[in-house]
């Protein structure tokens, strides 16, 4: 009796082992995806569970706060590190990723798998995937479309007493600002105003000094005023473009907004600080990336009908600052096959639809061309509008050098009140000229 029992146990164990073997082997495969630590990253973790279920490849994630993201991940790439198999790197990194060989070129893989860039928004393809710009050399798949937009306190805007006061002070109805002049008027109106017994302020805007904050903020004003990096694309002829009278006007407008209408102590603020200022009810307006808008819409304090969203106001032209990233396969990875498998899975229309529903910003035509898309969220229409006119910072391999020069010049002028807008932009051209000379471009 005893021996029969033992035999049965052994048989059960063997059967169990045999059944579990494929799953266990599949779980041996794993990938590490590197990105910034923010709301969309959490959505991606949720989404990637489907990939693991389907392929058996376990997904690990390395998320770094935005303030350290570039430092940490660019060091990883520059040192040929094997931590990341997949990298959702910033749009500016594409130039360096391609030139220095950090990213795998994906053209052959796309051709083999039938993945076409025609399925994605053209602006996103150009910004997140191609290098050089305008070429058909692809080093990433557009993963997360994003741009800088605005949030406002819809509930305050709708109050009769506030509307009356605005009409009396400004001489027009209080409405969502369409131009930068209107934006400053609205922000100025709310600055220091007492609402519900508390002092409120105008706008939470980007002023951060250390990484890229003030550049993202300032260019949100500069682009609509007509700022360009070059007179002729690819020629690096910056004089007359970077420091044009229109660019000077845009920069002066941003400084005006900073000086008149930001909360006290807002001299080194980026995404998180703007969110904090807005969510705590300090400001009527907030500048931030669309990626944060799902979180705002769901926020218990400012979500629902409390907040409204609008695209970056224009001045001479409609333009918004580009955010967002593409997903690339890291050239130093030992698991490139699995990484490519992930990209193939991610590029599927159904996966892209689920990505959008979870809070990721899909830029696949299957998502954005769906007739119901503009109504799918309170900000989907604005997102599409913004993505149609986005402009990005230099995507040069030496972008970090160019970015830090702009950070310094803009902070010196806007926050530290040193010199004039014209001087700041002239000095910026001097800095950039040296950088391009060193890089052999000039």
């Amino acid at each position, binding site marked *: 009796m005893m021996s029969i029992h033992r035999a049965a146990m052994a048989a059960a164990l063997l059967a169990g082992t045999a059944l579990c073997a494929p799953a266990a082997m599949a779980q041996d495969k794993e990938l590490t995806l590197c990105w910034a630590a923010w709301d969309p990253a959490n959505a991606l973790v949720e989404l990637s569970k489907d990939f693991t279920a389907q392929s058996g490849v376990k997904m690990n994630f390395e998320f770094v706060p935005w303030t350290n993201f570039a430092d940490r991940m660019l060091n990883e790439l520059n040192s040929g590190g094997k931590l990341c198999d997949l990298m959702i790197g910033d749009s500016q990194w594409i130039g360096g990723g391609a030139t220095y060989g950090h990213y795998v070129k994906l053209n052959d893989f796309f051709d083999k798998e039938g993945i076409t860039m025609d399925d994605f928004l053209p602006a996103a393809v150009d910004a997140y995937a191609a290098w050089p710009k305008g070429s058909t050399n692809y080093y990433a798949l557009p993963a997360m479309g994003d741009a800088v937009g605005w949030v406002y306190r819809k509930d305050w805007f709708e109050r009769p007493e506030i509307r009356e006061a605005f009409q009396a002070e400004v001489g027009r109805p209080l409405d969502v600002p369409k131009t930068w002049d209107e934006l400053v008027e609205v922000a100025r109106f709310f600055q220091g105003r007492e609402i519900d017994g508390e002092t409120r302020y105008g706008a939470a805007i980007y002023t951060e*000094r*250390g990484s890229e904050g003030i550049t993202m903020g300032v260019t949100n004003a500069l682009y609509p005023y007509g700022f360009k990096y070059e007179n002729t694309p690819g020629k690096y002829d910056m004089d007359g473009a970077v420091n044009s009278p229109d660019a000077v006007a845009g920069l002066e407008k941003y400084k005006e907004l900073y000086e008149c209408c930001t*909360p006290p*102590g807002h*001299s080194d603020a980026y995404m998180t600080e703007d969110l904090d200022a807005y969510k705590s009810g300090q400001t009527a307006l907030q500048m931030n990336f669309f990626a944060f808008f799902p979180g705002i819409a769901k926020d218990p304090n400012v979500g629902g009908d409390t907040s409204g969203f609008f695209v970056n106001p224009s001045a001479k032209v409609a333009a918004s600052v580009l955010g967002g990233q593409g997903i690339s396969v890291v050239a130093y990875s030992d698991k490139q096959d699995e990484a490519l498998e992930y990209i193939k899975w991610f590029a599927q229309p159904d996966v892209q639809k689920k990505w959008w529903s979870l809070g990721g910003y899909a830029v696949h035509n299957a998502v954005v061309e769906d007739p119901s898309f503009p109504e799918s969220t309170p900000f989907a229409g604005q997102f599409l509008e913004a993505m149609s006119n986005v402009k990005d910072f230099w995507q040069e*391999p030496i972008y970090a050098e160019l970015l830090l020069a702009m950070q*310094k010049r803009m902070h010196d002028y806007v*926050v*530290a009140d040193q010199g004039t807008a014209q001087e700041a932009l002239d000095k910026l051209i001097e800095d950039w000229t040296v950088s391009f000379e060193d890089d052999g471009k000039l």
Partner: protein
Amino acid sequence: MSDHVDDSLSVPAASAARRRPPRAVRGLSDRWIATLFIAPSIVLLLAINIFPLIWTVYLSFTNFRANQPGREVNWLGTKNYARLLGSEDVWSYLQATAHFVVWTMLIQVAIGLGLALLVNKNFKGAPVWTTIILIPMMLSPAVVGTFWTYLYQPQTGIFSYIVDFFTGLGPIDMIGSVKLAPWAIVIVDTWMWTPYIMLLCLAGLRSIPDYLYEAAEVDRAGPFQTFWYITLPRILPFLMLAVLFRGIENFKMFDMVVELTSGGPGSTTELASINLKREAFEKWRTGYASAFAVILFVTVFGLGNIYVKALNRVKQ
């Protein structure tokens, strides 16, 4: 001069055999053995300190970029140095650094010495107070920087509240104001490192023999004369040592200021070390950054040498 050796003074043969060095070491002089022992340290020193220094000097004459290892490295001569010394921005970083170093030293020495004199009185609870005063020094500078950004918040920070309470000036933006930010970092560094100066001064004070004070009392010397002629000369070497250590530390101050102001507003608090890090590891202009590092090294080394000579003179 005789060949004769007194047996009573000679080492017994068996004992001598025991003390004889092993065969492998036999034939090595004391100098060789000493060299063998210190060789690993010298190799480490050369590898970790001397070689990087020489390499940095070499790179400072090139256009090398650490993030582009495959790129051709060109010899630029003194171009990096000329560009550095001709840059208004670099002089403003050095100016910000000098402001920070000079004021922190002056204020910390004054307060540290005062605290040391106070704690040295041996009043009731003095050891407890000494420990409490030392606490800031034990924290990480990065933590201190982050912590003080909250204290300095104009709307919610306690610092702003206290200033407003006593002066009625309203909320003040310490780290957002061009005029106040340099003082904001001086205050935080003083809060953190004054205890260190106090500790060294206290060591100096405790080393002064009582009989000197007793003699002064017999000679009817006043408190100021006692301090001027006995206390100060006796603790001056300790004080100067503290200033040397803190001066060098503050010349290369980085983490606390980055956390506190990121070098802003504008470039008001961008110390030389912060800019050096930006050039080297964010812009990746390694050659240019190496030249800046060499200039800073020569400055610290030169000033340090002059200071050490003065210190030795005071000791004598």
